[in-house]
Each structure stands twice: as structure tokens, then as C-alpha cells.
């Protein structure tokens, strides 16, 4: 086991994978935080903006924005899971196999 650990640690592919995946995860986290706290601050500071009516009806701009934040949350999560479960997992499997040879 110790030998495997050393091999992985010294494999540049491992460092590259960790960097890539962490950068990706932090960018995605930042996106969600911008969307959510942006939405909250918009409500706190510019309520009128969200109260604007669209197309002469009663529906306000706040409705698509609110539902949009929900859909955005789901989509970003699903995108991350798909990439992590294919690309990142394949690379991590290669690294493990190389180390256990």
C-alpha cells in the first residue's frame, strides 16, 4: 500500500487531475454563490427590478429569475456530476492502475 501511495504521489498525472478537478469544483461553487447571493442582494437592494411586469400581464421578471436560479442549480450540479463520473473517474482509474502495476 505504501508503495502505491508513493507512486501516485509522484505521478504528475495525479497532481494534474487534482488541480483540474479542484479548480473546476471551486469555479462551479463560485458560480452557484454568485447566482444565489446575487439573487438575495437583488431582493435586498432593488426589489423594484424584480417587481417589473413582463409583456403586459401580471407575471413579473422575478418569476423567471427565481425559477431560473432553481434550474441553474440543478443544471450546474448535473453538469459537474457527468464530467466527474466520466472524464475525471477515467483519469483517476488510469492513475490507480499505473500505480498498482
Amino acid at each position, binding site marked *: 500500500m505504501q508503495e502505491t*501511495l508513493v507512486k501516485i504521489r509522484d505521478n504528475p498525472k495525479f497532481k494534474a487531475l487534482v488541480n483540474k478537478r479542484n479548480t473546476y469544483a471551486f469555479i462551479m461553487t463560485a458560480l452557484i454563490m454568485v447566482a444565489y447571493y446575487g439573487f*438575495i442582494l437583488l431582493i435586498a437592494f432593488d426589489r423594484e427590478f424584480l417587481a417589473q411586469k413582463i409583456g403586459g400581464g401580471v407575471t413579473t421578471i422575478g418569476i423567471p429569475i427565481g425559477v431560473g436560479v432553481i434550474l441553474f442549480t440543478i443544471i450546474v450540479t448535473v453538469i459537474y456530476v457527468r464530467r466527474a463520473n466520466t472524464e475525471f473517474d477515467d483519469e483517476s482509474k488510469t492513475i490507480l492502475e499505473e500505480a498498482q502495476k
Partner: protein
Amino acid sequence: MKIQRKHLFTGLLALIVAGSALAAGADLGQTTKQSTNWIAIAMFAIFVGFTLYITKWAAAKTKSAADYYTAGGGITGFQNGLAIAGDYMSAASFLGISGLVFANGYDGVIFSIGWLVGWPVITFLMAERLRNLGKFTFADVAAYRFSQTPVRTYAATGSLVVVLFYMIAQMVGAGQLIKVLFGLEYWVAVILVGVLMMCYVFFGGMTATTWVQIIKAVLLLSGATFMAIAVLWKFGFSPEALFAKAVEVHSKGDKIMAPGGLIKDPISAVSVGMALMFGTAGLPHILMRFFTVPSAKAARSSVGWATCWIGYFYILTFIIGFGAIVMLIQDPETFYVGGDIAKGLKGGGNMAAVHLAKAVGGDIFLGFISAVAFATILAVVAGLTLSGASAIAHDLYATVIKKGKADSADELRVSKITTLALGALAVLLGIAFEKQNVAFMVMLAFTIACSANFPVLFMSVLWRNSTTRGVTAGGFVGLILAVVLTALSDSVWVAVFGNPAGSAPFPYASAAIFSMPLAFFVIWIVSVLDNSEQAQKERALFDDQLIRSETGLGAVTSASH
């Protein structure tokens, strides 16, 4: 003049409802007993019969501590996603958010978004690392390279405090709900929930708990979908037509289409947002679910699915709330106390979704939704109990007291005894808190989870320089600060202790904006100043931990479970 006063009154009432919901996580409040609903009771009995049958099947499969805590790691990503959703979509979020939409329109959406945004954070930062490093509890992960006794003691304390506050809120909610939904006494609900939950968890462990959550999630999602479709169908699937009618009949007119009184000051808003977003990533009963799947891949899939279901569910509660505005206000005779809108909905403002069930599907569907709402509490309490039992049996007993020398059978025995003790405690607390205001408890659980559990997990897994002293000190500081500041805020200082309004020393709706950064700061400063030999060893172990957490090398597999 008379009309103006009435408007002012409803406006104030809405503000109070919104304010307490913001502080509370949409609690269920006090209710009055309604006439006995036999259809709902019969449907609930069918649910109980079926889930007990599953428990019997699960009990035959539950032989080791691993089976008990994690269903032997044999749950698939899709199943676990549903179970997580079942764990998270509580009765308070179903009835509370649809009730909030019914009272205030748009504000309900703001609230539900807060409950959703924690899921991507778990997906990106937590799910696979937890699965790769942990075995039964999140303390396995937090204490991976640290000295076991202090970190486990902290993590078990953090878990138990969160579990207890969350549990009291659920038990009191169950008691209040049974009066309205089934027309039975408060204590019947508390004992019923206590006994059934003990049966599931004691005999069937995680396997039974998971299936109870899955069945409940499917029933709740189907019921809510049916209601939303029934509402939209009436308006030719045009949201604009639905909103137009709602604006026409609602006393607040087109104000329901825009943010109202929910967010008063930006600091409270951001603070509550932080508690919900990062607290989700520190709830022990949610984190525990990641150990039930066979791999990191399945752990990620399960949060992916859970996020989809929960997001979908919140969109449904939004349509249901607007549907309730349209259908209930036009028929005060059936749905309002004494047929008078000014006196409020029968059973209280949180009953909007339940009344809508009757409006769209008659008494049978009303019975169905009532049974599902009650089953929801049962499933959540079962999950909480199991995670409390694992904190005591696995973290405190097997690791701290027995120093890791307890065998599986021994640990299983202790966790079963703990389950019974926690069940009894839940019943006692449920009865003790009947007349108390427990509105603050769910929010407090989230605030503690985000100020204590989340920083500890985050720093121990992702930051090389953290040490035993750092995470333990930071964790306890976050925990204590969250509790103290909450006690000094409106939701406890005024609402529970009965001090005059406006006298609360802590003016914001959640402590998270202060307690979470402070916990991170304490972990950082104490770790940086810690140059002990132990600290050097712990830093040296980081590479090992990193490799395991990132690649899954040496992770517990379902075979070795």
C-alpha cells in the same frame, strides 16, 4: 377606513408569518384539533403495514454494524438520491413553503431557493471525498489523520446537538399535524412516531430507513405532481392565467408577484442564506447517506439525483401555493374558519396544501396527502435517530471509549441500545416541548451544522496545515457561538423567553454570518500556531489522505463492508 385597517392587519400578519418562517425554517406552529379523518388514518395504516413488512425483510439482511449503519453499502446512486430527497423534503418544507406562497406569493420562492443551493456545494466539495475517506459517520472523515479522541468527541457532540434540535422540531410538528390531519390527540402522534421509528431503525437499520425514505419520497413527489398538474390543467397550462387569477383574488393583489417582507435587512438575508447553503453540507443524517453507496461515482450520482428531485419538488410547492390561493379563497365556506377569510384557514396557514388536496381530489386524495405528510415526519425522524445512534455507538463508544477495539457485534449491540434510548428521548422531548415555541430549532440546527460541522470537515479534508487542536477548537467555537447568538436573537430571546419585542441583543435572523467565519478563523489560527510533534505528523499524513480522498484508493467497498 375600515378597509384600510383590515389591509394593514393582513399585511402585518403576513410580515409576522414571513419573519418567523425566515427565522424558523417554516415550522408548523400551534394547531387546533379537527374532526377524525378515517380515510387518512386508513391510508397511513397501509403505509405503516407496508413499511413494517419491508423492515422485516431488511432485518434479515442486517447482521453486522456495517449493514446497520450503511445498508452494507449496497444502495444504488439513484435509490440513494431518492432517499436523500426523502430525508430532506420534510413536512415543514412541503406544508410550510406552500403555506408561505399561499400567504405571500413570491416570498415562498425565495425561501425554497435557500433550501436548494446547499446541494451543489455538497456535490462539488463533499460527496466523493466523504465516500472515499469515511466508513460510517462524518467523524470518520474529519478525524482521518487526526488524534481520534478529541476530534471524535467534538464531531459526536456536533452531530448529537444538531440531531436533537432537528428531532424536537419534527416531534412537535408531528404532534401538531396529527391534530389537524387525522383529528387525533397530540400525544398519540408523538408516541406513534416514536414507536414506529424505533421499529424501523432497531430491526431494519439503514436498509429499512432508506426504503422508508424512498417510498415516502415517491409518494410525496407523485402527490405533489398530481396537485400541480390539476392546478395548471384548470388554467390551460398557462402560468400567466394562474397568476392573473391569483392576483385578482388575493388580498395583497399584485404584491404577491414580487418580493415582500421576507427579507428585511441584507445581513440577515445573507446570514440565513449561508446557514442554509453550508448547513446542508454539515447535517450528519444527510452526510451519513453517502456511506450507503458502493463508490464515489454512486455518491456523486446520488447528490445529482437528489438535487433534481428537490429542485423539482420546490417548483411544485410554488405551483401548489398559487393553486391554493386561487381555489381556497374562492370557497371560504369549505376552507376557512367559520367561513370567514379574516379568521384564517381551518387548521392554520400551513394547511394550504392539504386543503388544496381536497379541492382537487376530494376526500380520498385529502386522506392520501395527509397520510404522506405524516409519513414524511416518520422518515425524517428515523434518519435522524440512526445518525444519532451512529455518533454515540461508532464515534464515542467504539472509537473513543474502546479505542477502536470493539468488534462489529459489540458495536451493533450498543447502537441498538442507543436507538431505543434516543427513541424514548424523542418521545419525552416531544411531549415536554408541546406548548413551547420550537420555531427556532430547525434554523439553529442548520446554523450549527454550517458553523461547526462544515468548517471542520472542509479544513480537515482540504487544508494540509490543519491540526487536531485547530479543528477541535474551531468546531467547539462555532458550535457555542451558534447556540449563544441564536439564544440572544429574536427567535429565542423574544419568542421563547418572552422578553419585550425589539430587546434582543443579537439583531439578525441567523448567527451564521459571524459564527461560520469565526470557526474558520479559529481553525486557521490555532493550527498555524500549533507546532507540536503531533501536528507535524498530522501534516505529513495529508498526502496520504489527499491521495485516498481523490482516487478512492483503499476506500471501503461494499465487498469489505
